[in-house]
């Protein structure tokens, strides 16, 4: 059976995928287990959070601001069919808060921080530092994985909140000075359709995306094999897999959030 071409090309990747997802879940359980135990390495946590926020800020803003501009342009093109241009700012704010900013921010965090986490841990595994820690009965997950994973989980919502502001500002730049919508109308409609759930659902999404990025990239780096090329492969896989995972999770999260908010209202 395993010589069969169909089996090798279609079924085997699926089996491998399920196995890898299981391993990642197990890794996450290990992380949770070390989260309970002491000691905490607070300096490392603060250092990594600072580094991730600082290094990701420029790429995140550089992606989210053009995104807001594009929403403004295309939104005006669509809304002018129904001559409803004043609704632009409502459209912009809802689409940025709920959907686009968390997703785009997560993509850039995966590209910038996820790959560097995977490369760092992979290099440590490669130089046998992780094995050395285990020999000295220091829990490497406690000292290496917990600070990085927690740092990504903390940094993602913070960056999303900053990026929300810049995305809406980018939309304003296209809408008001360039396309000539009245500033007062823009500001008046800005918060008309926004509920507190919109803001919190974006932040919740960002936190979960951060957890996904952290787990995938720490897992890939922690178990990297095969020299310098293996480290490169681990970093690449970390980015690709975390982006795929977060888009898949995004759909189910959106559905869940909508059904929950409808029940509440």
């Amino acid at each position, binding site marked *: 059976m395993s010589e069969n071409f169909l089996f090798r090309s279609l079924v085997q990747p699926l089996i491998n995928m399920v196995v890898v997802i299981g391993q990642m879940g197990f890794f996450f359980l290990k992380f949770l287990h070390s989260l309970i135990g002491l000691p905490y390495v607070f300096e490392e946590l603060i250092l990594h959070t600072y580094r991730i926020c600082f290094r990701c800020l420029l790429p995140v803003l550089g992606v989210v601001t053009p995104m807001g501009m594009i929403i403004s*342009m295309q939104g005006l093109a669509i809304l002018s069919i129904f001559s409803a241009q004043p609704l632009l700012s409502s459209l912009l704010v809802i689409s940025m808060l709920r959907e686009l900013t968390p997703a785009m921010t997560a*993509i850039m965090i995966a590209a910038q921080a996820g*790959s560097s986490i995977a490369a760092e841990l992979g290099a440590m595994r490669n130089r046998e530092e992780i094995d050395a820690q285990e020999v000295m009965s220091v829990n490497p997950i406690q000292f290496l994985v917990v600070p990085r994973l927690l740092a990504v989980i903390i940094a993602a919502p913070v960056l999303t909140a900053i990026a929300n502001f810049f995305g809406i500002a980018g939309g304003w730049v296209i809408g008001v000075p360039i396309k000539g919508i009245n500033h007062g109308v823009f500001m008046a409609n800005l918060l008309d359709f926004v509920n507190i759930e919109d803001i919190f659902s974006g932040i919740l999404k960002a936190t979960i995306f951060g957890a996904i990025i952290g787990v995938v990239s720490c897992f890939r780096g922690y178990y990297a094999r095969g020299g310098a090329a293996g480290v*490169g492969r681990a970093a*690449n896989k970390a980015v*690709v897999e975390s*982006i795929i995972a977060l888009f898949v999770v995004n759909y189910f999260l959106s*559905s869940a959030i909508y059904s929950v908010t409808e029940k509440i209202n």
Partner: protein
Amino acid sequence: MLGVLKPIIEFIAEIGRIILFLLTALRQVFTRRPVYEETLRQTWFVGVETMPMVIVIATFIGTNLALQGYHAFAQISGQSLVGIFVALAGFREMAPIVAGICLATKVGASIASEIAVMRIKEQIDAMEVMAVNPYWFIIAPRFLAIIFCAPLMIIFANFFCMLSGYVVAVYQLGIDPTSYLTTVTTHLEVLDIGYSIIKGCVFGLVICLLSCYYGFNASMGAEGVGAASNRAIVTSCLTCFVANVYMTQVMYG
């Protein structure tokens, strides 16, 4: 004063170096017979091995467009507009962006790290010593592969985005399928599809150029490889998004 100007001058010099690199590479692409085997290998990698990622991400982008569009338009009781929203947002913006992200994270990063490994193992210098032009042997096949595959990728992304948007709108949100399809076909123009493909091709070229450049100029050591692929992903994502604003302005402004 000079301290402030130095990063700006360095930035402009970097752009100049990238353009010189592009011209050198394009000369090899257009004036010499390509290396067939390497081109085929790269086309397989770009076209076949990256396609599952494009399909998965485009599918879930389509589902989310339908979901968000439905709930946004429900507030002004315009649920029937979901079809237009999915079609226009998908074709005009999201599908090219999805293809760009996939190209940057999977193809771009692996191009950069592959070429960087060649650089640190001094294979590129060895080629130059043997009078084999590295631009012809390494860079040109990757350019050709991406030029060939980017339009196909966009078409796949568009198709799966629309398909999943339709499935979610009809089966999850309960919109009438006939009215959905009618709104899509009345508001979607052929030009939108063409523009979408053009955008994707531009993204492909930008990503290929930047990742080849950063791989080719990688610094020595294992850190150089990681830095090259990281820089390739981030810079090409940024450049694509900024280029997207200008292209949208020109096409639909």
